[in-house]
């Protein structure tokens, strides 16, 4: 038995399917080209995402309703146990953060800043993952916040344990996010133990990240902590990303095969947090759009070349060795890049000793190193120039 309508309809209505198909094919190519090359389709995508959101909400409503029902019929004992657990956790966090203010101020003073820096995160917004399948093989999720709440493209997405992803498309009430475990996602990280910077890419499943660009002799071992390095312009420095689970070195391979497990509960999360960062904070992501990297700070001028070291007059340099060590050019290569930095090392020394009067004296040269550190940090992220905020 054949399926379909018995009896053919009148065939002479409208243009032929071939002609229509050609038109649609051309239209598709134009749309694809504009979307891919120029990003001109952002507006259309915005409108389509707005139109699709009701369907997505409707589809996710049965599972949401089921979850809500389960929650509302939860027993009193379960609720009490959870309450107990949360109270314990709250106490633990309060104890842990008790010294935070003092430590932050101390850190600021040690860095020669007048005040402790404010936290790098300026604003937080909780968002819920709309329970919907975007694509099973790509790790994407839909969240229920959009431009009306100020969400923007390439915004960082965290959960309570670590970095989870970033926003790829924004609609008025919803946004699509790519998770760090997506094979197309790469996140610049830093190994906490050694400060070695590399890139972690998604491995395609919810459980692991791969670090494909580490040479075979890199100092990395299982259990190392991966933090965001602050490069790349999306994530600020110092947020936990993953822990290395597996390092495989092969003598014939130039690169090590390294796997890591993300801290964030990528596959089970229901709630995530959108974060807005202070753009002028040293730990903030280096912005690639403003062109800061090209212009730089005019105060930071290249140092004139250090005077050449006195060459040993005689080949037996055993007596010459102490004099070459004490030449001022070789004392501190890092501070010599900022002219005022070397001048201010003795001036800032009293504040490091901890006397409160010395730190508060209006020293005319005191702000200079602070400004320089602040300006230099995003451009030259040496391990001690980027403060890590907990």
């Amino acid at each position: 038995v054949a399926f379909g309508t018995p009896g053919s309809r009148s065939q002479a209505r409208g243009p032929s399917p071939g002609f229509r198909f050609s038109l649609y094919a051309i239209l598709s190519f134009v749309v694809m080209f504009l979307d891919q090359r120029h990003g001109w389709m952002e507006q259309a995508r915005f409108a389509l995402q707005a139109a699709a959101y009701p369907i997505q909400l409707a589809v996710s409503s049965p599972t949401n309703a089921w979850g809500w029902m389960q929650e509302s019929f939860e027993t009193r004992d379960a609720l009490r146990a959870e309450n107990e657990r949360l109270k314990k956790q709250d106490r633990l966090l309060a104890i842990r953060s008790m010294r935070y203010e003092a430590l932050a101020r101390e850190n600021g003073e040690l860095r020669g800043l007048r005040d402790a820096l404010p936290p790098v995160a300026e604003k937080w917004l909780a968002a819920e993952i709309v329970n919907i399948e975007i694509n099973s093989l790509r790790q994407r999720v839909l969240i229920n916040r959009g431009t009306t709440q100020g969400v923007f493209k390439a915004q960082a997405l965290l959960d309570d344990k670590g970095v989870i992803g970033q926003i790829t498309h924004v609609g008025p009430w919803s946004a699509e996010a790519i998770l760090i475990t997506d094979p197309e996602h790469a996140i610049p990280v830093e190994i906490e133990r050694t400060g070695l910077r590399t890139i972690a890419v998604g491995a395609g499943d919810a459980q692991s990240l791969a670090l494909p660009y580490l040479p075979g002799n890199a100092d990395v071992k299982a259990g190392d902590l991966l933090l965001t390095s602050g490069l790349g312009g999306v994530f600020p420095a110092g947020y936990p990303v993953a822990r290395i689970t597996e390092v495989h070195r092969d003598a014939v391979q130039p690169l090590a095969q390294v796997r890591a497990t993300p801290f964030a509960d990528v596959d089970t999360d229901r709630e995530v947090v959108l974060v807005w960062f202070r753009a002028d904070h040293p730990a903030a992501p280096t912005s690639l759009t403003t062109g800061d990297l090209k212009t730089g700070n005019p105060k930071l001028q290249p140092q004139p070349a250090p005077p050449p070291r006195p060459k040993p007059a005689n080949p037996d340099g055993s007596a010459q060795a102490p004099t070459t060590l004490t030449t001022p050019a070789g004392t501190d290569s890092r501070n010599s890049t900022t002219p005022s930095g070397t001048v201010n090392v003795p001036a800032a020394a009293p504040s490091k000793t901890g006397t409160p009067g010395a730190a508060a004296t209006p020293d005319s040269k005191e702000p200079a190193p602070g400004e320089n550190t602040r300006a230099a940090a995003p451009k030259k992220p040496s391990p001690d120039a980027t403060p890590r905020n907990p």
Partner: protein
Amino acid sequence: MSSGEPRLRMLFSALLALVLTVLPLPSYLDIARPPFLVLVVLYWSMAAPRAGGVGLGWFSGLILDVFQGPVLGEHALALAAAAYIFCREHQKIRSKPEFQQSLIVLAALAFYEGFLFFMDAYSGHPLTSPFRWIHILTGAILWTPVAIILGYRERRS
């Protein structure tokens, strides 16, 4: 049968198929989820090539792009092409028995997915997981039930 009625049923079935496409499922089931919307578009291209056909395929594909495509227009083109083939050959396909229709659908789905695979790679969003080919099979298997459900009223009348 009035000419407006299949159009209404077409839209309704396409919407239902879309809902089934984005319905959250556990991941092991999700890999094998049949491409419901593609099956519905293929059915209407075969059963009523004038009412639906290429246009229905293109717009359905565009919606799929919004939901799950890396580039806008990719699913639209693939689905319009598959619908065009079914529109052109609708009389031949209609006259075949169910099993052969399933095989034709299998070929059409393979063409559809292969085209997407090519476009993914070309646009710089490659997805080389072997799991992406599984739903071709489940789709071909599901063709007979889908066709029976969609053609139910017409065969009775």
